[in-house]
């Protein structure tokens, strides 16, 4: 399993508690469109991702992240 695949799996695990609609999670799944998250859910979820990977995802960076795949890439970059 590559690092990216491992990160993707971890992120999927973190999404599940907030995935009330049971959406099938793919690279291109969007947080606002597909998962229908509001800003408060995003806040809770981002905090859990930050704590899992011991990183900070600033609100400025969050604004650029729309899909699960983009988040996985961002986590990879922020861990370096």
């Amino acid at each position, binding site marked *: 399993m590559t690092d990216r695949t491992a990160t993707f799996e971890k992120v999927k695990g973190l999404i599940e508690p907030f995935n009330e609609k049971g959406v099938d999670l793919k690279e291109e799944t969007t947080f606002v469109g597909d998962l229908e998250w509001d800003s*408060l859910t995003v806040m809770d979820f981002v905090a859990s991702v930050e704590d899992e990977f011991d990183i*900070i995802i*600033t*609100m400025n960076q969050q604004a650029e992240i729309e899909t699960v795949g983009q988040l996985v890439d961002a986590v990879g970059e922020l861990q370096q």
Partner: protein
Amino acid sequence: MSMAGSQTAADVLAADGPQSRDLFEKFEPLIQERDRLLGTGVRDPFAIVMDEVKSPTEAVIQGKDTILLGTYNYMGMTFDPDVIQAGVDALKEFGSGTTGSRVLNGTYVGHKDVEAALCEFYGMGHAMVFSTGYQANLGIVSTLAGKGDYVILDADSHASIYDGCFLGNADIVRFRHNNVEDLEKRLGRLPPEAGKLVVLEGVYSMLGDIAPLDKMVTVAKKFGAMVLVDEAHSMGFFGEHGRGVAEAQGVLDQVDFVIGTFSKSVGTVGGFCVSNHPKTEFLRLVCRPYTFTASLPPSVVATAATSIRKLMHAGNKRAHLWENSKRLHKGLRDLGFRLATEEPESAILAVLLDDQEQAVRMWQALLEEGLYVNMARPPATPAGIYLLRCSLCAEHSAEQVEQILGMFESAGKATGAIG
């Protein structure tokens, strides 16, 4: 009769002009939600008009005498005779407005005097008065933290703090509401050498809960951050001198900037920043929401200065406001209402309801009983909560508080909010 009058600008464009997206389209879900709600026949909670205001605690709304339990008039200063006299004198002496910026023609002797009053009130060296509290946060947050700096803020921060972040160029980091450990973890992950501004509030206005500032300020200082505390809802009421939650918890001397407003306990309108930082005065020249707007009218700064100096000696009023808050909190709980805080933490008590429909029906039932409270809904409230926000005033009499409880009982039973 010509039909042309009923043709809208949009119709004309649709027929002849280029087809571009309707700018109002993004509001459509909200417009529909609102139409659905108002379609059930309830009154619009966001369109109340007060025809007369009889005192800090009483107004006339649609011909009905109404007790006000949803203002920010915590210390009841709006009808104080000294405050009113100061405003009348200044209005006569200095005119109705300044028609200019604080840094050009808009600083009168009264503006300097209210800044002096703030320095006396907080025991600090510098005060900067803005035209509103919103602008004070907008200006100070956006100006202090620039490119490469970090603003670390509580997730439940007021809109003016968020907007200050969006106006500036700093990187924005949020931590979970009132969570000291979460704040510490995030500070620890930031580059040690980067400039950091930690933004906290004394009282959070939606649920009326207070921040553990003693712990949070200590953590912020451990990482070398500057600390800004918004004491909008605590000024006049918390701490021995009414300086706010930071004073009450013994950490005011470690707070770099206190932001506040004249539109709550002070009883008029305006905002401010007080600080002991020696370079505070320089901010006047680089803070756009301070510079590029008209200053407050002379009557407003005169009423504010008088009110602030009176609030320095308002110990009895503070005690009565606490009594009111405790009595109402206990009374509402005894009636079976769910409140946002276990104990009364401030003069704001939030009654939690199941959903928007129940909240609006309860709100309307109270209004018909003769009681005004605020209805609040997301995104103003955290975590999808619908609530009725009650804020007490030092001028509410003990009898009024009992009357209020009676109104809650009948409205709660009529709407099924309580058994």
